[in-house]
C-alpha cells in the first residue's frame, strides 16, 4: 500500500528532528574542541533537505547531497554514525579519515561523496542516471541534487543542468537560496528576479517554494520528483529561506542583517513544521516529546561510540591511491 501523505510528512519531520539534534550536538562538540576540522550545519534548511531525502529510496534512487543536507541524508537513509564518525575522526567512518565532515557518502548505494567545488555534483548525478539508462534500469528511478545560490553562479552548475536537460534525465535539482554564499549576499551573486527563472533558459519546469514551510516544501518537491520519475525530465525547485547559522561554526554570521533574521525568510522551519503537524492532527504532543527524546538518545549513542573508536593510524594505512591492483605502489 502506498504511503499516505500524513505518514510521508511524519517521516520527513522525524528526520528533521534527528538532523537538528545531531547538528546541535556537533556544534557543541566543535565549541568544546572535540571535532577534527570544521563543522558545517544546516539549521533552517531541514524542511527542504529532508523533503528531498524522504522522496527518495536508499539503494534505488540517487541523492547528490551538499553541505547543508543532514536532514536529507538522514531521510534518505544515511546512518547518523557516518556523520559522527566523520566529524570525530573515527577510522571506522565512511572514508576512514581520508576525508571528513560533509564530504562523505556511499556512492554504490546512490549517495555520491561531494567534492567542495560547487555545482560539480550535478553532472555526476546525471552520469549515474545516464548509466542506469544504458543498463536498462532507469525506469521509475530519480536522482536529486542539492545546490545553493552560490553554486548557481558556477559554470559547472550550468553545464550539468543543461546536459541533463539535453539528455532528458530524471534529475531533480533542488536549489536552496539561503541568501548568503558564505558572506556574499544574493545581490552580489545574481541579477535575475528569482533563480527559478533559470529553468526557462534550460527548457525545464521550475517551481518556487517557501523553504521554511515543510508542508509546502514536501508538496512541491514530491511533485517534482514524481514528474521526473514519470519521464518529465529534469526539474528545478528553488526554495527560499535564510541560513540560520554561519557558513561553518567558525563564522558568527554577523553580516546577516537583523531585518532579514526577523522577516518571514528567517522563520525556523522546525518550529513551523511542529506547529503544522500538531495543528493538522498528524502528530500529538506526546509523540513529539518521545521523538525528541529518541533522537537525543540516538545522537548520544552515535557520538559516544564514535569517540571510543580509534583514529586512523598513518602507519597502518596502506596509502593506496590506485584501485587497480597491478598499479599498487607505483606512481
Amino acid at each position: 500500500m502506498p504511503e499516505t501523505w500524513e505518514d510521508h510528512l511524519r517521516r520527513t519531520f522525524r528526520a528533521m528532528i534527528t538532523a537538528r539534534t545531531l547538528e546541535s550536538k556537533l556544534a557543541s562538540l566543535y565549541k568544546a574542541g572535540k571535532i577534527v576540522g570544521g563543522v558545517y550545519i544546516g539549521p533552517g534548511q531541514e524542511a527542504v533537505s529532508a523533503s528531498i531525502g524522504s522522496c527518495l529510496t536508499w539503494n534505488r534512487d540517487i541523492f547528490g547531497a551538499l553541505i547543508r543536507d543532514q536532514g536529507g541524508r538522514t531521510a534518505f537513509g544515511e546512518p547518523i554514525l557516518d556523520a559522527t564518525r566523520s566529524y570525530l575522526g573515527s577510522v571506522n567512518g565512511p572514508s576512514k579519515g581520508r576525508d571528513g565532515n560533509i564530504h562523505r557518502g556511499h556512492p554504490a548505494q546512490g549517495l555520491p561523496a561531494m567534492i567542495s567545488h560547487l555545482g560539480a555534483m550535478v553532472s555526476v548525478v546525471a552520469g549515474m542516471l545516464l548509466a542506469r539508462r544504458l543498463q536498462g534500469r532507469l525506469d521509475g528511478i530519480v536522482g536529486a541534487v542539492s545546490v545553493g545560490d552560490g553554486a548557481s553562479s558556477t559554470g559547472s552548475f550550468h553545464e550539468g543542468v543543461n546536459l541533463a536537460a539535453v539528455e532528458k534525465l530524471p534529475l531533480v535539482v533542488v536549489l536552496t537560496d539561503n541568501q548568503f554564499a558564505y558572506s556574499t549576499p544574493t545581490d552580489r551573486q545574481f541579477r535575475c528576479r528569482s533563480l527559478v527563472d533559470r529553468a526557462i533558459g534550460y527548457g525545464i519546469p521550475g517551481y518556487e517554494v517557501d523553504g521554511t514551510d515543510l508542508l509546502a516544501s514536501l508538496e512541491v518537491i514530491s511533485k517534482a520528483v514524481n514528474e521526473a520519475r514519470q519521464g518529465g525530465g529534469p526539474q528545478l525547485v528553488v526554495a527560499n529561506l535564510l541560513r540560520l547559522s554561519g557558513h561553518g561554526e567558525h563564522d558568527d554570521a554577523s553580516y546577516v542583517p537583523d531585518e532579514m533574521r526577523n522577516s518571514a525568510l528567517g522563520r525556523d522551519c522546525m518550529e513551523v513544521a511542529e506547529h503544522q503537524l500538531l495543528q493538522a492532527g498528524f502528530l500529538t504532543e506526546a509523540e513529539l516529546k518521545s521523538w525528541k527524546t529518541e533522537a537525543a538518545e540516538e545522537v548520544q549513542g552515535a557520538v559516544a561510540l564514535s569517540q571510543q573508536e580509534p583514529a586512523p593510524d598513518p602507519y597502518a594505512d596502506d596509502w593506496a591511491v590506485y584501485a587497480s591492483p597491478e598499479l599498487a605502489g607505483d606512481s
Partner: protein
Amino acid sequence: MQEVTYIDAIREAQHDLLASDDRVFIYGQDVGDFGGAFKATQGLKTLFPDRVIDSPISEDAMIGLAVGASIEGMRPIVEMQFADFSSVGFNQIVNQAGTQFYRTGVPAPVTVRLPSGGTPGSGPFHSQMMESVYAYYPGLVIVTPATVADAYSMLIDAVALDDPVLYCEHKFLYRWLKSDRLNDDQEKLPIGRARIVRAGKHATVVAYSAMVHEALRAADLLAEEGWEIEVVDLRSVKPLDTDTVVASVARTGRLLPVGEAFPWGGVTSEIVSRVTNDGFHLLDAPPQRLNSRDTPVPYHPNLWEAHRPTLESISAAIRNLLRL
C-alpha cells in the same frame, strides 16, 4: 597489404571495446554520426547507436557525467576534442575522478582521450601537451602511446584499469604513423612499463609520444657520427618506469629526457630527479633536459618548428651531452 595508421588503431580499439564490453560507452563532442573531429569514432554510432553519445560543449560536465556513470559500473571513454580543452574539465578530472577511490573506496574507471601536441598551424589552443599537468595529481594514470600497436593495446588496457586514465594521443602521429597491422612483433607490455626501442651505450634519450620518433631519427643521425644512442619509450608517464630508465643509464652513463611539453617542471624534470636520486653514481655527466620553449605554442609553422624539440635540436642536445 593494408596499412593501419595510429588513428585507425584508436578507432579499432574503441570498436573492439564497444563490441566486447557492454559497460563501455563513448561520450564527446561530435563523436556520433559525424565521427569525431579527427574521425576516431567514424562509423561507431551506426554500429552502437546507444553507446556513442554526442555531448554539449561542456568539458566539466562531460567528465562529471563519466565519473557518475563509472560509479554505476560503466566504463566511459570521453573524447576531448583537443587536449587543450580539458582545462575546462580540469576540476572534475583532478578533484572528482582523481580523488574518488581514495576518499570512498569506489573506483572511477574513466578513460579520457586527449588529442595532444602540435601540428603545423594549430596555434596556442589546439597544440598543447597536458601530460605533465595531470601527472602532478594523485590517483590518475597518464599514458602516451608512440606506436600504432601501443595506440591500440594501451587504449584497451586503459579501459580495463579500475582507475581514471588520461590517454594522450598525439595528433601529429594520427595519419603520419603507419604500420602493416595493429600488433607488432614486440612483447606486449602493460601500462606502467617503458620499452627500450633502440639499444646503445653512449647516452640514453628518454622520450614519449611523438618525441620517440624524433629521438629515433636523432639516434640514426648520431650513429653516422659513430655514437650509439639508447632510446627509451616511456609509454606511460604515470606510473613512470624508473627501473627501466635507471637500468639504461647504468649502461650509458648519460641522460637526456625529451618532452614536447613546456619546460617548467613536468615529466622530463621528474626523470632527471629520479635518476639523480636513485642512480647518481651511474652518471658520467650532468643530466640534460629538452622541452618546448617556454611560450605558448606558436601558430606559424616556422615558429612552431623552432618551439618544439626536433631532430636538429635533439641531435644538438645529444652532442652537447656527449661532450660533458
